[in-house]
């Protein structure tokens, strides 16, 4: 299963490390990653892939949202088809 994970908020030391280690713990493989400052906000976009039979979408989403709350960041996870549908012909 694949999904797009976005991390947005105030820049701080260790965001990439914390998010990546949480994903590793959840057995989510990062297959693409980009990071920038957009309108002054730290913005990281990842594409994650995992075995859907081992780990439910909900569980990963909730774990990431919890991490976001700890770090004061907005972490979302959404299926890629949404972005393709809206942005691609």
């Amino acid at each position, binding site marked *: 299963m694949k999904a797009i994970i976005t991390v947005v908020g105030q820049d701080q030391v260790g965001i990439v490390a914390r998010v990546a280690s949480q994903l590793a713990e959840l057995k989510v493989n990062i297959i693409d990653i980009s990071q920038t400052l957009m309108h002054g906000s730290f*913005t990281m976009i990842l594409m994650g892939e995992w075995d859907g039979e081992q780990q439910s979408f909900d569980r990963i989403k909730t774990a990431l949202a919890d991490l976001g709350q700890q770090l004061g960041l907005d972490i979302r996870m959404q299926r890629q088809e*949404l972005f393709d549908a809206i942005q691609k012909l």
Partner: protein
Amino acid sequence: MESQQIMETIQMISEEKLDIRTITMGISLFDCIDSDGEKARTKIYDKLTKSARDLVKVADEIQAEYGIPIINKRLSVTPIAMVAAACHDDDYVAYAQVMDRAAATLGVDLIGGFSALVQKGYQSGDRKLIASIPEALSETTRVCSSVNVGSTRAGINMDAVSQMGHVVKNLAAIDPVSCMSLVIFANAVEDNPFMAGAFHGVGEADRVINVGISGPGVVKRALEQVKGEPIDVVSETIKKTAFKVTRMGQLVGNVAAERLNVPFGIVDLSLAPTPNEGDSVAEILEEIGLTSVGAAGTTAALALLNDAVKKGGVMACEHVGGLSGAFIPVSEDAEMIRAVSRGNLNIEKLEAMTAVCSVGLDMIAVPGDTSAETLSGMIADEAAIGVINNKTTAVRVIPVPGKTVGDSIDFGSLFGTAPIMPVNEASPADFIQRGGRIPAPIHSFKN
């Protein structure tokens, strides 16, 4: 994919309140007809609860996985006047109660189809159903009702127009808030996912999934980027935005249909406002350049908006249907409410606006002493606009007992507040009491 595009999509959902307004499952009840009303209602309950068993679950899953809010999960059924006609019951209130019970069991928000289609005349079931509307709606919480009184092919049934004025008055006397569950249509559509006017048309498949999109906030935000540009640029911007919004509706509809194993019907390309700030159709019109909705130029701006939404949306999905356009319900749009309170928007201007938008005089509160004949006159005017212009029009009007201009009625947080609007007090009673049928317009003869 570009990061910019991903972030734009997320912003559309999180900041501009883009959502799927409704996933509506249409269910045919023709196979539930029985001469014994009790048996018919048992079959209806069983069919509804079986057919839509997973609707709420699937909608919640889609919301979680795709990150798109899905605001309402609804059902629409075959007009009950047809389903119940074979039974010998004296009234059809028990049919509304069984619809309500099935909706509650399933956890869906609303169920539409306590309806009759009388544009050319009444069959026996139509009379009983219409007479049952006040009691049916006041004794249920999730049932929605609609009556189609005119069509471009049939003309306008003035007997029904006259009767519906009284039905609205009677319903308001019991509970004015229930009036928001009753719509009187001309040219009603058979695949509308929006309430209160949804019913499952007779030409539809046994079950179907229809999706209604929303997104006034997204359109307004896009227009903020083209301030002062020529109107062509405004139109292009609305089209592009409507395209993106509709693509999301198509995606959600496809996924829902596949998971529920039900055919996907249509996407209804409507801009549906809510009372929440930033979710207003009136604010789009003001962004186009009006100081207030209701100003001279409002009808033209709305015509442009309505047309551009359709043009943008049509290419974005496989099948377009329902009402498709901009909704202008007064009490469900924060800026409309303010415009009425400021004195910038009146019923006459709203009526003109309904000639170019997707529905009609919607969620309008009027003084409690407004006569049934005046309400019928408003219904007749709207039906005439629809019938002559070959479009759907509707009236959802609330005569609030004991209240007058300057007062307001509160429908609860989701449905907003409606200021009582003044109505022309000259009586149309002699016109309404003539009864009969306004013939179909000359341009309806197309064969």
